[in-house]
């Protein structure tokens, strides 16, 4: 690296953060675009159709299995009329898409999406309260939907907004409770002594609630992944993520069949696209959380090269790719489930949230506590 760049970066540490933010944005946005394509193609194949397979490289006949579709989609939403109905509450109507999209992007700030690249930890904000921050931000997402429902000033969006608020609150509690056992295991100071010196250097100065620390806890072997140690917690967390991101068995705020399009009925053009991108970014953020908390983050249990912090550039990039690959698996699962399960009825949704998941997750906490106490 040339001298002056090194100097610039050491004198202005915020530049590094800015570069990381841009980097994450540059990776997440295409992922959003291509998860939309994946959604359409997978749904088509499940329903014996072929899906969008025409758009390839513009102005050529190269079709690339329809991988140029995001271009066409983006262009289309830019060219559509940005219509504001006369009966809406304007300020909230304008705010809502941004409020629903930004939280899903902010979540990426604390997620360790790789080990090291050069001398930099691959996490934008290495917060010691990472998981609390995540829950705080994720729950902001509901305001966008509620605002959209309220500001649209018509009945279907309003119903969607109401449903969303009830749904999000009930599933957030179960979700929060389900990760407590994860931290009961991972936030135990004892296991850190057994780590290699690489890991110790990497975790220097981080707290026990730090998400990198959870990754370190799972780096040992396949069966130290928390998905195997805490299957009940994982199951509840997975389903809560479905509910949080309004994905199909729980897409009551949107439910096309009964509420037209729910909270975003009155939106068109790029504002609608913002909601759409927000939904997919939330899916990616949720998948990233599941990967970090339950599936070993960027590590793979295939020896030193994959499960200790990277020394070189190539290793660092491989770790990032491993992380993206794991996210892709979860995205595939979420997309698949959408075309597999019918929507839950409203009372069933509430039943599952309050009467099943909450008690089960509490029981799981107690169970974990008993096991830990017996082991100690």
């Amino acid at each position, binding site marked *: 690296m040339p001298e002056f760049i090194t100097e610039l970066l050491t004198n202005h540490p915020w530049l590094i953060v800015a570069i990381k933010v841009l980097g994450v944005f540059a990776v997440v946005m295409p992922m959003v675009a291509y998860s939309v394509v994946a959604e359409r193609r*997978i749904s088509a194949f499940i329903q*014996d*159709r*072929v899906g969008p397979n025409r758009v390839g490289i513009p102005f050529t006949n190269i079709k690339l299995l329809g991988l140029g579709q995001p271009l066409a989609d983006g262009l289309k939403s830019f060219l559509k009329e940005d219509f504001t109905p006369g009966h809406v509450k304007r300020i909230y109507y304008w705010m809502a898409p941004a409020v629903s999209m930004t939280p899903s992007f902010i979540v990426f700030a604390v997620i360790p999406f790789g080990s090291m690249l050069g001398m930099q930890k691959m996490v934008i904000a290495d917060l010691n309260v990472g998981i609390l921050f995540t829950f705080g931000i994720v729950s902001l997402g509901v305001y966008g939907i509620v605002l959209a429902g309220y500001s649209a000033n018509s009945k279907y969006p309003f119903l969607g907004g109401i449903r969303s608020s009830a749904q999000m609150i009930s599933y957030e509690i179960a979700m929060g409770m389900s990760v407590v056992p994860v931290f009961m295991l991972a936030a135990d100071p004892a296991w850190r002594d057994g780590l290699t010196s690489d890991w110790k250097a990497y975790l220097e100065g981080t707290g026990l609630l730090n998400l990198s620390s959870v990754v370190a806890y799972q780096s040992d072997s396949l069966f130290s992944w928390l998905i195997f140690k805490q299957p009940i917690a994982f199951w509840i967390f997975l389903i809560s993520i479905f509910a949080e991101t309004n994905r199909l068995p729980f897409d009551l705020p949107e439910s096309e069949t009964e509420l037209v399009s729910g909270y975003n009925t009155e939106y068109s053009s790029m504002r609608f696209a913002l909601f759409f991108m927000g939904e997919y970014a939330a899916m990616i953020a949720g998948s990233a959380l599941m990967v970090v908390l339950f599936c070993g983050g960027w590590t793979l249990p295939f020896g030193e090269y994959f499960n200790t912090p990277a020394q070189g550039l190539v290793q660092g990039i491989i770790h990032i790719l491993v992380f993206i690959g794991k996210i892709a698996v979860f995205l595939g699962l979420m997309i*698949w489930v959408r*075309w*597999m*399960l019918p929507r839950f009825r409203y009372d069933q949704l509430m039943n599952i949230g309050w009467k099943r998941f909450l008690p089960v997750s509490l029981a799981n906490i107690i169970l974990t506590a008993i096991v830990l106490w017996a082991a100690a």
Partner: protein
Amino acid sequence: MKVKRAKLSWLERLYIPSILNGFKVTMRHFFSWKRSEVYADKQSNFAAKTTMQYPEEKWPVPTGYRGAPYLVKDVDNSTKCVSCQLCEFVCPPKAIRITPPGRDGDVDREGAEKMPEAFDINMLRCIYCGFCQEVCPEEAIFLLKDYVITGENREELIYDKEKLLSLGGLDQRAYNHHVQEGVDEGIKKWEKKTQDAKNQAEFH
């Protein structure tokens, strides 16, 4: 009305068996490409989705299908139309316009008194009713297989005589397209109509 809800067993209320079942069904559809009953040509091809990849694949047009009306030629490659203007008269949307040759028009086959000087069909007006084919005493106009009629402007879609003749081709092809049950070759309209008339006479 009170809907009776079936009592679910403990296992069913876990939803897990039905979720696994759902995976099984969706997997089957995802990987085994279902054969379709609609597209006859695809029956032989196992790897077919129900979607028809339109411009590359097209419907097999059934015999007797009423597509665009074209003029046909006989085996000697001469025009069959004799400019009687019956089709022009019968055409409900007035899509056909025939210019008769006048007193000294050219004739390109023996036995014909006259040929149309111009024969235009406006494909934008045509409703594919088939009256022209029905009324034509010379079996010179047929509704053939074409159903995709496109153009960049309205003038382009008014087909003139040369274009209609070249699109129509030989009359044998048109006969084959309109093959009827129990008749060996072509429709042989007048043969059949004569037979019908005879039968009617016998009946009375």
